[in-house]
Each structure stands twice: as C-alpha cells, then as structure tokens.
C-alpha cells in the first residue's frame, strides 16, 4: 500500500469510516504507524469527522443542495417528485398485462382454429353428398338420396381424405359441391372398352376433391375392409382397416391430383381374423374435363 494508492482511493477516509476490509485496514495501519504524512492525514480526517459528528444530520438536510441528494435512499422514494415515475410504471404494467392477455387469447384462438381444421377435414364426407344431390354434375351418376345407404356419414372417415402431396386443399378451402361417384362392381375386373365404360369419373382439370362410394349392402360382413387402386400393374393407392359407415357404404375421398386420365381398378377385400378375401372389383376410368 503506497501513497498514490492511498490518496487516489481515499483509503484514510474509508479506514475511519470502517469501509475497508480487515485486511486493508491492517495494511493501512501498518503503513501509517511508520508514515508521518498518512498519520497526519488520518488525524486531520478524524478531527473533521468528530466535529461533524456533533451536527444533527437533519440540520443539513435543508441546505441549498437538492433534497434528493441529502435523503437516505429509502426516503428518495417518498419525496414528492417520485409520483411522476408512477405513471410510466403503471403504463408499463398495463402494457405487460395487455401483452399477456393477447398471448393467452392467441393460444386459445389457435386451439380453436386447429379444432375447426380437424372438423373441416371430416366435412366432405358429411356435406358433399347433399350438395351433390341438389346439383348433380353432368355425366355423373346421380347421387344417392338421403334415404339410400350411400350417404356418407362415416364414423371412420377414409384416410384418403387427407390432402394429397402438392394439393391445394387446406383448412381454409371450402368443399362445396364435391362430386360423389358410386362405383358398380364387376366380376373379375374385366377390362373396359370405350363403348362400355361402367364407371366413368369426370373430374375438373383444376385440383379438387371427389368421393368414391362403394355399396356393401347385400355383401358378406367383414371385420374390416382393405382397398387398393391399380393402374395397370402399378398400385396407386392402398388402405386397410376401413369400416363402412352407418349406411353400409365405404366413402373414399380422393384428390384429383392423385389420378391421371386413364383406367384404374379398385379392388376391395374383406378381412376377418387377419385373413383377406376378395369382395368386389370396381374398374373405373378417370376423365378430366
């Protein structure tokens, strides 16, 4: 500990004010025991402090200097100018509360939106047949009446209703007048020629959804069904674990982008105890308008 350090850092003042650590105090004591200059400085500070200690601190609080500089820290919160800080603080709290409200509300709305999206995915199987019934598309087979079992109210909507890759469908799109095609089964899946097209599906060139309805009435009951669509030898689509709706029909939703114009064969198999059995074959032709 040397003079420049002692002077620069007011060590003598801090020593008498007991603001030094025990180690620093000891070092300084050892220093001023040998140092006249520092000893005199300590004596001077001690004298001033003793004289000033006689003064009532409240008597100096009214001096010319700003009151805030003379008040203990706790009092600075109580003196009159502080209320000016209350308004910004209140505004800050209000802003934070509003932000919190919007975050919570946004989360609630997102959950609601997700719920609606999920509901919309299942919407085609419920609403489209009605629209099809009222406005049948030209060239299509007439939609079954509400009394007929083909009305798709499946408790297990076909998984094919999920959007195809690259499709334009989405939660924000309405599925209005979605066409429903009821396919007629043939024996052995015999090929169709142009003159005898049994199942012709005309879909618009613009992307869209359509439903293939398969009537199962009169057929043997199975625990579940599995279906596949082939184009030649190539399997275009396959799904298992299908269950008919309450009207005894399988309603399968497809996106038009899944198919190119051409001939396809839908094979339906029934599954009991894990064993599949052929149920019916539905050849159909896709025609894009």
């Amino acid at each position, binding site marked *: 500990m040397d003079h420049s350090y002692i002077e620069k850092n007011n060590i003598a003042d801090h020593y008498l004010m007991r603001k030094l650590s025990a180690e620093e105090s000891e070092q300084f*004591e050892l220093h001023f025991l*040998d140092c006249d200059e520092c000893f005199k400085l300590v004596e001077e500070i001690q004298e001033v*402090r003793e004289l*000033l200690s006689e*003064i*009532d601190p409240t008597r*100096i609080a009214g001096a010319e200097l700003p009151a805030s*500089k003379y008040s203990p820290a706790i009092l600075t919160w109580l003196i009159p100018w502080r209320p000016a800080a209350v308004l910004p603080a209140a505004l800050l709290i209000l802003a934070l509360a509003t932000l919190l409200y919007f975050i919570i509300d946004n989360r609630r709305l997102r959950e609601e939106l997700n719920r609606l999206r999920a509901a919309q995915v299942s919407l085609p199987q419920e609403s489209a047949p009605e629209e099809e019934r009222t406005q049948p598309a030209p060239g299509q087979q007439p939609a079954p009446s509400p009394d007929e079992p083909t009305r798709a109210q499946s408790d297990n909507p076909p998984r094919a209703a999920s959007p195809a890759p690259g499709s334009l469908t989405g939660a924000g799109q309405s599925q209005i007048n979605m066409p429903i095609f009821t396919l007629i089964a043939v024996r052995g899946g015999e090929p169709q020629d142009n003159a005898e097209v049994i199942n012709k599906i005309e879909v618009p060139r613009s992307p869209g959804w359509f439903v293939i309805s398969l009537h199962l009435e009169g057929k043997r009951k199975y625990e579940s069904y599995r279906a596949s669509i082939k184009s030649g030898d190539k399997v275009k689509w396959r799904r298992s674990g299908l269950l008919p709706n309450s009207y005894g029909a399988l309603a399968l939703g497809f996106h038009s982008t899944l198919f190119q114009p051409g001939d396809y064969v839908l094979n339906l198999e029934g599954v009991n105890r894990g064993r599949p059995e052929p149920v019916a074959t539905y050849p159909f032709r896709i025609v894009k308008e």
Partner: protein
Amino acid sequence: MKAGRSIDRKDNTDLVARIMAGDESAQAELYERYERRILIIIKRSVSAGADVENLCHETLRISLAAIKKGVVREPEKLSAFIHGVTKNVLRNYYRKERPEVSDDAKANEDRVDPGPNQEEQLEQKEGGGLGLKALNMMPARYREVLERFYILEHSKQEICSDMKITSKQFNVILHRARKSYIKLYQELNDGEGQ
C-alpha cells in the same frame, strides 16, 4: 521503504537499541512516536473514551517491556511489532477483560466522563453549535462535499457524478474543505473564548 514514510528501519533499530541500553529519552521517544498512532487504531475499535486511553497505555507498556527484555527480534520492524501488540490488547479487551471489568469500567466512565455540561447540551440541541456554524460559513462546494461524504456517507462516485467533477478534483476539494473547516472552527472557537 516506500515513498512518504518518515520512520525508517535504521531509526527503529537505533530506538530499540537505546531502550535496551536503558536510555530514558528513548522510552519517551517511543511514547511520542507511537502514542497518537496507537490511539487512532484503538479509537476505531473502542468507543468508550476511558478505555481508549487505558488500552493505549497498556499497549505501550507491554511493548516497552518486551523491547527491554529483548523480545523484539527484528528491531527494524518495530512498528509491525507494536501493531501486533495493539491488536492483542484489543483482542484481550473484547475477549475477557471487558466483561470482567465492565461494571468497574462503567463506574469509571461515569466518574471520568460525566457527559456534556449544560452549555454542551444546548449546543447539541442546536444541532452541532460551532460545528454547524463553521459548516454554514464554508463555500457551498466545500460544504457539500463534507456533508455528503462524512455525514451522509454518500459514495465518492455518486458525489462526483452529481457535482460533475472528476475523482481527482473531488480529492482536491475534500482536502481543501477539511483544512478550511478546521480553520474556521478554530477561529469560531477562539472567538467564543474571548
């Protein structure tokens, strides 16, 4: 020895040698050199006025006896030795001596220091009397530094920031303020006495 020190090792070695040789002026020199310094250390730890004096004398007595007996093996470090004795005296004071003599000390304090007289009490009621008067007579800048640094114990940084002064300027102002205050107080005190 570092700059500013006024007692060198040779001084200490000579002093110890003279005391051991029975030089009475050397003993007086020891008291003169260390008494006030020891008082500062003890005052910082002990508030009772009577005890401060007694502890200071005890420290010097023990130190002198030790020097005479040749216990001080490194005379050039006499100050460090005396510092050690001072600390031991203070430790003993707080550990065992004080509780034992507490009643006596209380009685002694009452006898020696009867407290402020009527005039002093009036001064205290007036909020410091001459001390406050001297303070109010000082230039505003000096007064502010003294009040804030020593009475309100504001930090140096805070004061510098408020007064828009550097640390170096603060030290200069504080030094001049102390000198000015002591001088003013003495003048007022002298004026009162006349």
